[in-house]
């Protein structure tokens, strides 16, 4: 089966206006304005199989949204090739758009001044949906996303969470085969996020929708994506399951140990019982944090090594994508 999305050597450059502030520029001391070339994306290659749910990760300005715009035919690549559902997004934009759904969390595609249901009716014509097909899909989305309470409300009067549910319904009305979600949970509360995540898992399971998801909430990606693509300064620096990414970037789980107050355990007593590649750190609350390699040592094995010490309680902090993200983007890859 051909890939749902295939990008090969994808690159995009932008010409960005630079205006120098200040009196010197006003007085003609050098050019006050000029253009700079920015490489938003460089030599990005990846393939996504039908039905996969892939997280696309990177800090602000890494090129995530640019990639989505290139994959959907809105922007033309400066170099490289793209195929989505075996179509060339730029040359076959209209055909492709009938088969994909795109949601930009920060841009509403709903008509602002009319009730939500009217936006759905408009989309019914735009996507040439049959009356029965539209009725059935809308009924399903109303139930899954709990839209009934605000279907008749103008979009400008919806809360952010309600609007996002409406946006999601709007991109799914025509049953897209590929869904591009750019920060779909931005500004949504924890309950709303959880509902959206469960909904995405549901449509992936039932309809086999391929999903490419970008989000600054790494919980979104960890909870639903079996694979992540890591982007840094326009270049792809990692591709694999979230757990593999955390391992690859040297992020390890941490076991936090709480000892009884009268136990008087010294740090060196713990260190003596640990393998050399474990690190030990005393925390402000009196606990000791042991960072270990899960491939070499499981948490029960680690605890059994410390079994003779007066451990009162313990807590395991798994290596998460958030830790990997901080390590890669916060401390340099």
């Amino acid at each position, binding site marked *: 089966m051909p890939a749902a999305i295939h990008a090969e050597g994808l690159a995009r450059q932008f010409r960005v206006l630079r205006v120098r502030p200040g009196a010197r520029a006003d007085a003609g001391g050098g050019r006050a304005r000029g253009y700079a070339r920015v490489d938003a994306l460089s030599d990005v290659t990846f393939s996504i199989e039908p039905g996969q749910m892939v997280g696309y990760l990177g800090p602000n300005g890494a090129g995530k949204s640019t990639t989505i*715009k290139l994959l959907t035919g*809105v922007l033309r690549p400066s170099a490289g090739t793209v195929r989505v559902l075996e179509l060339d997004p*730029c040359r076959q934009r*209209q055909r492709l758009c009938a088969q994909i759904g795109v949601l930009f969390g920060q841009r509403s595609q709903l008509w602002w001044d009319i009730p939500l249901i009217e936006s759905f009716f408009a989309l019914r014509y*735009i996507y040439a949906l049959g009356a029965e097909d539209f009725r059935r899909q809308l009924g399903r989305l109303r139930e899954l996303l709990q839209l009934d309470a605000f279907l008749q409300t103008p979009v400008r009067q919806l809360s952010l969470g309600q609007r996002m549910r409406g946006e999601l319904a709007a991109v799914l009305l025509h049953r897209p085969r590929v869904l591009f979600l750019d920060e779909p949970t931005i500004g949504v509360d924890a309950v709303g996020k959880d509902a959206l995540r469960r909904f995405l898992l549901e449509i992936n399971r039932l309809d086999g929708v391929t999903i490419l998801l970008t989000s600054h909430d790494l919980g979104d990606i960890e909870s639903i994506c079996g694979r992540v693509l890591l982007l840094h300064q326009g270049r792809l620096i990692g591709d694999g399951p979230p757990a593999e990414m955390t391992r690859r970037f040297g992020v390890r789980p941490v076991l936090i140990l709480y000892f009884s107050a009268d136990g008087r355990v010294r740090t060196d007593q713990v260190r003596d019982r640990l393998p050399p590649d474990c690190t030990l750190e005393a925390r402000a609350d009196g606990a000791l944090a042991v960072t270990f390699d899960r491939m070499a040592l499981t948490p029960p094995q680690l605890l059994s090594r410390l079994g003779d010490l007066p451990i009162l309680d313990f807590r395991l902090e798994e290596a998460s994508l958030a830790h990997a993200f901080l390590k890669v983007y916060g401390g340099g890859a």
Partner: protein
Amino acid sequence: MGDGSDAECARPPARRWAGLARYWGYARRPLVELRTRRSSLPLGWVRSWVYAYILVAFWRAVYGHTAQEAGYTLGQIVSYVVAGQVLNAVLVSTAQERLSQGVRQGTVILDLLRPVALPLALLADGAGMALGSIFSHGIPMLIFGVLVLHMRVPLAPTPLALVVLLGFLGFALLQLLDGLIAYSAFWTVRTQGLDRLVNWIVFSLLGGSFVPYAFFPHWAQGLLTWSPLAGLYSDPVQVWVGRMGAAAGLAAAGRDLFWLAVLMAIQAWVHVRAMRRVISFGG
């Protein structure tokens, strides 16, 4: 008038026509919007009635005790300017507003993410707006014009049909002219200054909305009569007030069709180049 994509060009004509039903999704939006904010309509009526009344008062002051100016009687000029205001309801376009805002704010990409051709989507949006505007503004202005300002209305079938035909062609011309201005946003980003200049001076004044061409210098009359601008207000309104006969009206319709073909070709060319300039930063 698509985006020049292979797939669209390769589509058989029957499917192309079937695809046009998609644009009803755009055309119905202004109608629904109108229904949603119908309570604010009376304020719009009063505003346009006052404006029409001021225009008529201006022309009455110009005429004074003169029976005829530039071949127009006072009755004809009153009918002319009020008919121009009725036509305002048809001559609406959303292209500048939609595209210039869309390009500046990056929301133009949302229209490009739908399985439609952008020029046709803009046209459908304008058509919906005009349809709504006929009922919300055109008919109230017509009633006010007849009852209060004593406007003459063509009731014979031939001039009535010609007014409808020329009004329709004027709407199509406006969409293309306005669309071309709107597309300049892809190069200039901000077109707001240009919008005002074009809307108020070029389309209204040079289109003959409230000053008939007969009042213009001879060289300007010759130039404007052959320009697409004459198709906006001047021709349909001249038929309305009985200053243009059937033969001249049909000739004007032929000239409008010529300009429509030219402007469509230019817009298709500009559209393809504009699509290469689409830039949208950020998510």
